[in-house]
């Protein structure tokens, strides 16, 4: 039992500063005081089956919307199954005490009209306003007493908005045109504060204290309290916690050698209320088909885990996760086996019939497959890719792979299992006797498909993958198909990201500028992907990335090497002071609008100025790592003693020229003025 809260303020709660409403509403100051004994709160939104992948996001959103209500509570928990979103909070007060709200208005000097407007908005007369002294000056503000209210009342009033405010990527209406929208129809609502029902209505459904169990193993109406809710559900074959369902699945698969698949497990956890694994088998003859095809059928089409034998090879068995408690008659197992057999038979039929026409003989068929209306057919694309592969230094194998890699688009197997494009082409090429380099390049040419995905396995494959992606990017940008916001139908971001990864991690010493042509939009698009890659994936600091990119991002291997040097230099004692000096140099040059000019050593004053120049002459051309320590004291001294803006114009311009020379010389690795320092 949690200790009751007699009094508390929202500030005493472990609020996340990012999401806490107090922090956002900076101009409103409130003191909320709670009173009454602590209560449990339970909200269950009972729905028809919600798509599994939307559930975690919906719960987070529900949490946020509840926290915005600003009700003091000790703890909060969110749970869901496909048919219910549940929020439970502990330690809510019975009522909120009276509170004072102070809203800050216009500054003291504001026109009378603005002051009157503010007063009117607050429902007050201008003379009711008070003047307050703040750090920024004197401001009008309005204080009003907000009477405390029962929490039940607040909840009843706000929950309909909370529920319908939950964001889903796609919603529907069901009560009629113009009716409320939700992910799927809402069929019941449980809303209990302590023992009381919080009364409200959403989409014609009245809140109450009746939940619903598993569709076939549980009762349709079950009376619950805020305390026994989870247990009552369990009695009716609903495991409320996703973690518990996950744990049950994993526990019941102990001892079975499944191919681990966390994404599939996550899906199944939100597809079931009472999950239970069941093992089925298939005819070992199907193992003649490529593993890739078998696994795709099981994984993507049937949501089965595949099994492996002791040597790690695919075993002729699978695990299906049922949404029920058992299969005493074996109906479910044999049903699933029959479905899988039919699917495997289809796959075998396609595998055999596709091979009646070799991949190489399908090239001409690509002329009927449109890549993009303005960019022609896949035959055109393949021709461009082959040329590009050669330009990238690819050998005859790379060129052949580029010509053949799209041919699998005309096969029945790819039409049936589109997610296997590339892979299927590679498998057919291998079966049809193409050399390793060729079939592997075809197999891998869509890689990497994500940040976690591996690169194509060798140089030839990497060249073909580059050719494919670069052709798509150049083509689409060339005809003005530039991704905006979330619209990216040709997955150009992924393509560009793939290019960046292959170039950097595959250590391709190629100038990006040459690869993407002179397209400024495409260059900007790539810069964004390069920045993202080094910052978010590789973990360089954003100012390091800015500094190094400012010194050139034409060759990504070189850029990566420079970033590593800057990262290594950063903790050394001279680095930040020198960076600060370079920022100062940049500012001075920018203010003087100085972009270069003649330099005359004879004009240098003896002392710090000349010493700086002498040092420059000594260390110019040395690696920055050794130059930096020598340069720093001279620059410091220079700025300490020398006035750049000398009264004599010639001397002034000569000093600017000296600084400009330094900047050019020492910005080859990175533009240090981009480094953010604490100095």
């Amino acid at each position, binding site marked *: 039992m949690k200790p009751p809260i007699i009094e508390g303020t929202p500030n005493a709660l472990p609020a996340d500063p990012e999401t806490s409403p107090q922090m956002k509403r900076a101009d409103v100051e409130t003191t909320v005081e709670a009173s009454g004994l602590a209560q449990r709160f339970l909200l269950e939104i009972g729905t028809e089956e919600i798509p599994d992948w939307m559930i975690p996001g919906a719960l987070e959103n529900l949490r946020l919307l509840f926290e915005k209500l600003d009700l003091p509570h000790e703890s909060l928990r969110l749970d869901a199954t496909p048919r219910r979103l549940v929020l439970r909070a502990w330690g809510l007060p019975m009522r909120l005490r009276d509170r004072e709200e102070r809203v800050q208005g216009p500054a003291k000097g504001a026109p009378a009209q603005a002051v009157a407007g503010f007063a009117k908005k607050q429902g007050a007369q201008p003379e009711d306003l008070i003047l307050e002294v703040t750090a920024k000056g004197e401001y009008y503000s309005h204080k009003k007493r907000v009477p405390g209210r029962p929490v039940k009342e607040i909840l009843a009033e706000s929950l309909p908005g909370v529920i319908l405010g939950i964001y889903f990527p796609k919603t529907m*209406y069901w009560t009629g045109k113009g009716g409320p929208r939700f992910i799927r129809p809402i069929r019941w609502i449980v809303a209990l504060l302590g023992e009381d029902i919080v009364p409200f209505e959403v989409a014609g459904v009245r809140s109450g204290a009746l939940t619903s169990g598993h569709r076939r*193993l549980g009762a349709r109406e079950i009376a619950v309290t805020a305390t026994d809710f989870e247990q009552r559900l369990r009695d009716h074959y609903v495991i409320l916690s996703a973690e518990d369902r996950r744990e049950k699945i994993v526990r019941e698969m102990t001892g079975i050698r499944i191919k681990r698949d966390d994404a599939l497990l996550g899906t199944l956890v939100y597809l079931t209320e009472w999950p239970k694994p069941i093992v089925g088998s298939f005819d070992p003859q199907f193992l003649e088909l490529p593993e890739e095809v078998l696994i795709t059928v099981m994984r993507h089409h049937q949501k089965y885990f595949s099994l492996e034998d002791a040597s790690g090879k695919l075993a002729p068995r699978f695990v299906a996760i049922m949404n029920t408690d058992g*299969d005493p008659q074996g109906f*479910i197992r044999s049903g699933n086996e*029959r479905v899988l057999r039919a699917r495997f038979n289809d796959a075998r039929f396609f595998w055999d019939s596709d091979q009646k026409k070799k991949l190489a003989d399908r090239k001409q068929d690509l002329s009927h497959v449109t890549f993009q209306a303005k960019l022609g057919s896949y035959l055109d694309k393949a021709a461009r890719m082959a040329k590009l592969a050669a330009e990238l230094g690819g050998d005859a194998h790379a060129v052949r792979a580029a010509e053949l890699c799209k041919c699998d688009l005309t096969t029945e197997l790819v039409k049936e299992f589109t997610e296997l494009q590339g892979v299927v082409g590679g498998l057919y090429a291998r079966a049809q006797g193409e050399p390793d380099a060729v079939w592997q390049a075809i197999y891998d040419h869509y890689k990497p498909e994500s940040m976690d995905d591996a690169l194509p396995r060798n140089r030839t494959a990497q060249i073909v993958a580059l050719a494919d992606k670069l052709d798509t990017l150049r083509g689409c940008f060339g005809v003005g198909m530039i991704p905006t916001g979330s619209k990216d139908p040709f997955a150009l971001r992924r393509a560009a990201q793939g290019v960046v990864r292959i170039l950097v991690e595959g250590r391709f010493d190629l100038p990006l500028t040459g690869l993407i042509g002179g397209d400024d939009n495409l260059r900007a698009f790539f810069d964004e992907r390069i920045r993202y890659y080094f910052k978010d994936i590789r973990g360089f600091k954003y100012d390091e990335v800015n500094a190094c990119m400012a010194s050139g991002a034409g060759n990504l291997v070189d850029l990566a090497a420079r970033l590593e040097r800057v990262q290594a230099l950063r903790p050394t004692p001279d680095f930040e002071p020198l960076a600060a000096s370079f920022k100062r140099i940049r500012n001075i040059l920018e203010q003087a609008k100085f972009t270069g000019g003649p330099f005359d050593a004879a004009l240098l004053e003896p002392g710090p100025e000349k010493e700086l120049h002498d040092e420059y002459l000594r260390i110019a051309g040395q690696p920055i790592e050794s130059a930096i320590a020598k340069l720093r004291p001279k620059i410091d001294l220079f700025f300490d003693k020398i006035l750049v803006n000398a009264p004599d114009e010639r001397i002034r311009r000569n000093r600017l020229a000296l600084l400009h020379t330094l900047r050019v010389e020492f910005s080859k690795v990175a533009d240090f003025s981009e480094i953010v320092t604490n100095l």
Partner: protein
Amino acid sequence: MQSFQEIILKLKRYWAERGCVVQEPYDTEVGAGTMCPETFLRVLGLEPYRVAYVQPSRRPADGRYGDNPNRLYKHQQLQVILKPAPEDVIEQYLGSLEAIGIDLRQHDLKLEEDNWEAPTLGAWGIGWQVMLDGLEISQFTYFQQCGGIDLDLVPAELTYGLERLTAFLQVKDSVYDIEWAPGFSYGFVRHADELQYSVYNFEMADIATLWKLFELHEGEAMRLLKLYDPKSPGKKRFPLLPAYDQVLKCSNLFNTLDARGAISVTERVGVIQRVRKMAVGVAQAWVDQQGGSAAAEVTQ
């Protein structure tokens, strides 16, 4: 063992008991039960309606010469429309499975997200595929839009794949081994149909003739639609239903041409647009003719 026809009869009886008009199949070729006027036009407007019918549905590209145990050129759908969808619609649907002898406590049932969209009809909805022991046996859709028009009452559409369901119940690996009626297999009843239509659709259909027919039917539909006058006092007698038949003809011709490989990917989009234009035109005029919301807003 329940025969194919017994299962159909039981399902029809079940839905008749729940207030459905039991209709007979529509007599023009369609690709799905959704395309019949009993669904496509009836879901529009404010009149509640409940109907159930078996609709033989033609998908020329799915033909396999009668060789493939799971794929058919023509399959039988049981189409149920409940407009508006009752609150316990899923329970009613599950009850229909129990009515044909499926003890759901002994089976694994899941509703997996599957939203339906028919671009040629300007129609879409939100729903699921119903999975029974890993087999998709039905499609369940809450219609949102039809003919490009937001629906006033949201109907539930239940589409049962009757061959699959029967193969499941009779534990048959091939659809052709299903018992249609005692002593008559599905293959005996339908195999010739599958073989000959596959030959026609894939090999012998005359492309030029099909295009000509497409244009003739399209012309007739568009001619009628142009003649429809919402202000005419006699508009109730205007032949919109015959105009819609022309749209169905075009749709089937499009599918046949597609199966014949006569439509390139680029052309495809254009032809779909042409069919959609006709379907949307009929739907809008129909709403007007029925005196429903005159300002039927078409969302493109």
